[in-house]
């Protein structure tokens, strides 16, 4: 429900960009702003976030204790992909 009025000042350039984006999306300037607010500030409910953390903490992953070892694994994967010159299948 759209019940709250919000009046803001923007620069001429910001107004031009908002109007251009609204035209490109086939919506209004207000629609662009509402979508941006939702995208930037909406979080999952607190209970869902906490449940997700507890699920992570129960995973028992086999991570190298030395952070340098983990960095090597992370970087090695990227180098291997780059050397093949192709993108591996995405999951």
């Amino acid at each position, binding site marked *: 429900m759209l019940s709250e009025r919000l009046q803001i000042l923007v620069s001429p350039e910001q107004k031009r960009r908002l109007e251009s984006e609204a035209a490109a999306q086939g919506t209004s300037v207000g629609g662009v702003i509402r979508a941006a607010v939702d*995208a*930037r*500030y*909406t*979080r*999952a409910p*607190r209970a*869902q*976030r*906490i449940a*997700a*953390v507890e*699920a*992570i*903490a*129960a*995973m*028992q*992953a*086999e*991570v*190298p*204790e030395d*952070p*340098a070892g*983990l*960095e090597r*694994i*992370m*970087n*090695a*994967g*990227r180098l291997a992909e780059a050397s093949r010159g192709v993108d*591996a299948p*995405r*999951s």
Partner: protein
Amino acid sequence: MTFFIDANVLVYSAAPESERGRACASILRAVAAEDAGGRTSTAALEEVWDLERRGRVRGLTGLTDRAFQVLSPLLAVTDEVFATALDLDAPDAGTNDRLHLACCVRNEIEVIVSSDRGLDGGHGIERVDPLDEPAVRSLLA
């Protein structure tokens, strides 16, 4: 205080057997409960996803999706962030680390929580190791 959460913090959170893993999970718990203002970016979470997908570290299946639930909305890697990364004075930092640091700069975040010593340096962003209890306490206060 808002701080940036590096990819390795998310990975270690899934390894609670280790001291580092427990420390990282505690930070993530505080963020989930809104007791701390931790954020991460699309680039950092992509690193986690890449590691999970490759299977080079066992037991990570589902980590990216769960971390996304905790940390969404992610900080965007915008044109401004990318331009800042290109100009960043951090000769020892890799491309993704540059994006993380630039994301901090553009979002006025002064601290990055990470186990990666490669993020230490004179680029104006302070690295806090998850095992540095006093520093972590000050972030969560």
